[in-house]
């Protein structure tokens, strides 16, 4: 026996408890993690997938706890990425025990997952969460009896009132200190019989295994692949196999089904019904409509439902881009000021340009989107945590499904009209891989706010003012419709195959919790800054480099002396603008523009327009200022600038202008957005797909536009 002193002397190794937190969606896992005081939160990703991983570290008594919050999962199916992550983690990673979080108000449904966890024979503690709500609904659960029946300690907790958290931790310590648990999962007679047969057989042949024979037998009956593989190479397999086939037949016959998994699900369900019947007492069953059903009768009303939803969306959208633009202006101003101030202290031109135009502007571009992202994610967190999000999918799925998308695609798509970056990030609400990818590909068709100046400029140059509004509207709607058609085409080609089924829980309505929303938003924002931020800053610097190098001292000197020679202020400015134009023309970017000019000739673009399109890859706003530079008006022009408008209407034909607008509508989103896209889609290859996809469509649509417009003018 070790005495107390010795344990204390080696705390790190001896007293570490690693816990996997498992539960169905919406049982309050995140809330539970947040309710542990003085905990350190670690956020990251599960390796290889875009699923957030939250780890919490804290000390309690003499133990160091590490809790990993696994994504919510209904059962061990591999339907969504979340479920796959959880399943793989539970099977392959090392941890000391599982805390299975259960919503006390719907015990039977939650126990379905518990039963599956029990068959894994890992140590486990059950946390009966939402105890406060259960009390309100007059639900009483006899935890002592439940613990005894299941062979697993069960503890009542409430993440909201923080009741029972200590009991839970104490139970965890107790399980950790005791020897292996004996979960009592009991099946029907028919199955128990077959298990006994297999166990006997394993006994007879003294099969060596870490897991209990009972566990192996259950896994074999369930057709568990890993167990099969392990036994397949063992000599006893030849004899065992016929026994297994016989056993499976028996079980399937008993359940009148040819699907062993279905049979086991039914086994679990009847086990759970037994448990619930024994331990749960609910006073007078109120058969009236629940509050949720009352709210639902309004919010998903066949007629009123969609207008109500559109109103909410409108509100969220307004908030995101109206209120969001206020701090954006400040941030913009701050980085402008910072650039000037820092720039003033650097004597060397090249270094100053690198620091001010490259680094500070690059980092500024990353920070600039943070207010948008925060507000949008507060909105989405609200929609999700109140339970409204599922209603949205219910209402809109009929329409979106026609185009091969999912009802929830609506939210990222609408967000795309504001800015593609939060739109790509919000596509995470789609739980299914293919639905999400398809939506990601379509978001770019929704013209983002940054493209507006370009449209305004060209419309101003070619249409009468009273037509402008209609044309602008047509551009936006046209883009959206094109997106829908593109979705349908993608669905029929690249995303071909059977439709993903749509079966979704409609959770209870709940008041949102501030703490939880704060936690979600913080996690998401940190992820954006950490991952996307570094890439975006680096890429902005690359664009800066391409448009500023190679330097041409000869040209610079020539113009400098010319500028000095002339007297009039006006001609000085003209010359300076001319210098900017020729410098850009001979920069790497200009060279690329010249090089690809022939490729764009069928669309009616000259090299200036090609270069403007390329700088638009960095950020769409830049298209206007590039055109300003290229038409030698200086870079400080905006879309309302009359001299730029007249320069454009003089130098660009109507047909070229139309095809230019079409390209702006469709081609690759800006660099920052493309990087976020790549991250969310889960690989660089998707970026190349997106690049090819948008380029092909943009090119062919612009070509058609150019040909048609040429005929008329």
């Amino acid at each position: 026996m070790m005495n107390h002193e010795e344990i204390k002397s080696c705390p790190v190794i001896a007293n570490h408890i690693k816990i996997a937190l498992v539960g169905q969606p919406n049982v309050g896992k995140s809330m539970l993690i947040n309710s542990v005081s003085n905990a350190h939160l670690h956020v990251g990703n599960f390796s290889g997938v875009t699923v957030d991983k939250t780890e919490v570290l804290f000390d309690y008594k003499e133990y160091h706890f590490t809790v990993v919050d696994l994504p919510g999962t209904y059962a061990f199916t591999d339907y969504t990425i979340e479920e796959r992550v959880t399943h793989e983690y539970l099977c392959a990673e090392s941890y000391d025990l599982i805390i299975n979080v259960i919503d006390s108000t719907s015990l039977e449904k939650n126990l379905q997952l518990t039963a599956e966890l029990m068959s894994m024979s890992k140590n486990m503690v059950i946390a009966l969460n939402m105890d406060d709500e259960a009390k309100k609904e007059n639900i009483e659960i006899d935890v002592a009896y439940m613990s005894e029946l299941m062979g697993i300690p069960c503890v009542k907790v409430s993440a909201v009132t923080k009741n029972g958290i200590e009991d839970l931790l104490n139970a965890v310590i107790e399980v950790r200190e005791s020897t292996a648990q004996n979960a009592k999962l009991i099946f029907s007679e028919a199955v128990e019989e077959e298990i006994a047969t297999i166990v006997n057989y394993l006994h007879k042949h003294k099969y060596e295994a870490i897991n209990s024979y009972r566990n192996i037998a259950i896994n074999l009956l369930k057709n568990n692949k890993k167990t099969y593989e392990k036994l397949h190479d063992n000599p006893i397999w030849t004899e065992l196999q016929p026994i297994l086939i016989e056993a499976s037949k028996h079980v399937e016959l008993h359940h009148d089904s040819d699907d062993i998994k279905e049979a086991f699900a039914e086994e679990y369900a009847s086990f759970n019904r037994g448990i619930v019947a024994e331990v749960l007492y609910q006073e007078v069953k109120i058969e009236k409509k629940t509050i949720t059903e009352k709210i639902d009768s309004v919010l998903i009303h066949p007629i009123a439902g969609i207008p109500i939803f559109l109103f909410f969306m409108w509100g969220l959208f307004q908030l995101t881009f109206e209120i969001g633009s206020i701090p954006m202006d400040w941030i913009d101003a701050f980085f402008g000021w910072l650039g000037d101030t820092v720039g003033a202290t650097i004597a060397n031109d090249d270094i100053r340009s690198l620091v001010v135009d490259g680094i500070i502007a690059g980092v500024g571009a990353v920070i600039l989107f943070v207010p948008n992202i925060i507000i949008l994610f507060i909105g989405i967190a609200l929609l999700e945590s109140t339970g409204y999000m599922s209603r949205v999918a219910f209402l809109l799925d009929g329409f979106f499904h026609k185009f091969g998308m999912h009802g929830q695609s609506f939210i990222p798509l609408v967000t795309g009209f504001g800015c593609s970056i939060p739109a790509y990030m919000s596509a995470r609400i789609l739980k299914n891989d293919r639905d999400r990818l398809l939506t990601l590909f379509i978001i770019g068709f929704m013209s983002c706010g940054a493209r507006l100046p370009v449209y305004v400029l060209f419309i101003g140059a070619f249409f009468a003012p009273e037509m402008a509004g209609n044309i602008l509207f047509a551009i936006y709607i046209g883009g959206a419709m094109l997106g829908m058609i593109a979705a349908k085409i993608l669905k029929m080609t690249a995303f071909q195959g059977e439709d993903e089924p749509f079966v979704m829980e409609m959770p209870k309505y709940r008041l949102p919790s501030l703490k939880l929303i704060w936690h979600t938003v913080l996690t998401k924002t940190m992820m954006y800054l950490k991952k996307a931020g570094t890439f975006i800053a680096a890429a902005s610097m690359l664009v800066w480099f391409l448009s500023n190098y190679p330097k041409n001292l000869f040209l610079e000197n020539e113009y400098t002396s010319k500028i000095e020679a002339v007297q009039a202020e006006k001609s000085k400015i003209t010359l300076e603008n001319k210098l900017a134009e020729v410098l850009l023309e001979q920069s790497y970017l200009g060279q690329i523009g010249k090089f690809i000019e022939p490729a764009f000739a069928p669309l009616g673009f000259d090299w200036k327009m090609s270069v403007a399109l390329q700088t638009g890859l960095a950020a769409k706003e830049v298209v206007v200022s590039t055109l300003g530079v290229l038409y030698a008006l200086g870079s400080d022009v905006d879309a309302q600038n009359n001299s730029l408008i007249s320069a454009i209407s003089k130098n660009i034909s109507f047909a070229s202008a139309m095809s230019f607008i079409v390209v702006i509508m469709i081609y690759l989103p800006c660099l920052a957005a493309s990087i976020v896209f790549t991250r969310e889609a889960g690989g660089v290859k998707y970026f190349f797909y997106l690049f090819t996809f948008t380029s092909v469509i943009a090119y062919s649509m612009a070509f058609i536009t150019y040909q048609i417009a040429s005929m008329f003018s």
Partner: protein
Amino acid sequence: MHTLNECEKACKVRVVKLNAKTDLKQRLISFGIMKECVIEVLELAPAKSTIEIKVGKMRIALRAQEAKLIEVEKIDDES
């Protein structure tokens, strides 16, 4: 034999058989939709494209397409 998508609002049925393929069947089962369970139709989206049902205490939304794969029988209103 009826299928779930044929049911009107507020009707109560019992599941007889799941005709879905393995993956979807697993999904349905993990939501508690299995043989013998009782389903109540709560709400129908416009054009019946999506329906909301109640199984036990859980509300679930599914497409008509998926509902078609669930064979059900009417429960006589005795309660």
